[in-house]
């Protein structure tokens, strides 16, 4: 029974590394055009390696990441825009492949959240400061020692 549990755990781990080649590939390929190269580097940092646990295409050793990088280089060389490249990959792999969520109405809550939080924080700050400023008494004996 325990051996079965152990074996199950082993299979689970193996499933997680199911498609990993033994060879690791730091990708030395570049584009000759520096503008394209810069766009390339931007893209591979913004796109997820679909097989990894949380790495970008730039930081992944998985073979499929190397394949996708190669495809991106090809698309860049063929004159596709960043938008077209991302759209293509999203149409195949869903939005999951993007590390930067789309700026869309659907994602408004996500991008708007930090601003809303900041706004709430500002409102709270203003209220408290107003309230406390009204309570200031003229006798500073209570803070003289603190401020010495």
């Amino acid at each position, binding site marked *: 029974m325990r051996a079965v549990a152990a074996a199950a755990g082993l299979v689970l781990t*193996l*499933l997680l590394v199911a498609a990993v080649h*033994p060879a690791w590939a730091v990708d030395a390929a570049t584009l000759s055009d520096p503008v394209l190269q810069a766009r390339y580097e931007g893209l591979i940092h913004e796109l997820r390696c679909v097989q990894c646990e949380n790495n970008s295409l730039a930081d992944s050793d998985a073979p*499929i990441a190397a394949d*996708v990088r190669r*495809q991106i280089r090809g698309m860049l060389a063929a004159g596709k825009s960043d938008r077209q490249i991302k759209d293509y990959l999203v*149409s*195949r792999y869903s939005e999951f492949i993007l590390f930067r969520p789309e700026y869309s109405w659907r994602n408004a809550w996500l991008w708007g959240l930090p601003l809303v939080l900041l706004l709430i924080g500002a409102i709270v700050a203003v209220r408290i400061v107003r309230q406390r400023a009204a309570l200031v008494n003229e006798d500073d004996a209570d803070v003289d020692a603190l401020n010495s």
Partner: protein
Amino acid sequence: MKPRFLIPLGVFAALVVVLIVGLKDSRTVGVLQSPLVGHRIPDWSLPLLNDPNRSLSAQQLRGQWYVLNFWGTWCYACRAEHPVLLAAQRDARVQIIGVDWKDENSDALSWLAQLGNPYAQVVTDKAGDTAINLGVAAAPESFLVNPEGVIVYKEPGVITAQSWKREFLARLPPQSTVPAAAGSGS
């Protein structure tokens, strides 16, 4: 009890709800919901394993149901899946087309010779471009394609005996069988 002191508790309750939902769905974490399901399968055309000068394409398979199964000899989980595929082939309800992904032909041939060949035909995708074009993230992955060329289901991992019945057979028309023209072995 002043109402604003209940806000933290309220926010926390909402958080717990989100986490409960997340737990419920955690089976599907990290597994991609393929946006291609329900759409026509992107056109593919790949060389046959046993005769690289000839190829097989999505066009040629129009009018037939088929399962497109991505695998590789380097893939441990594919071995776990293999017996299920062999059983499915014996059932002969639908043909299984194997795509040998990022692999060596000689390795693939000896693998199939050793473990048995469940595939009506086997093609090879050495560069991996077709895999990407179909949104394949890892091996094994399988697509169920109808005669109109539409992907009706995608299995994002290993097919088990249960999932074969539940997801694949359940979607096939009741009396479907493997077309006689698509011979076995490749």
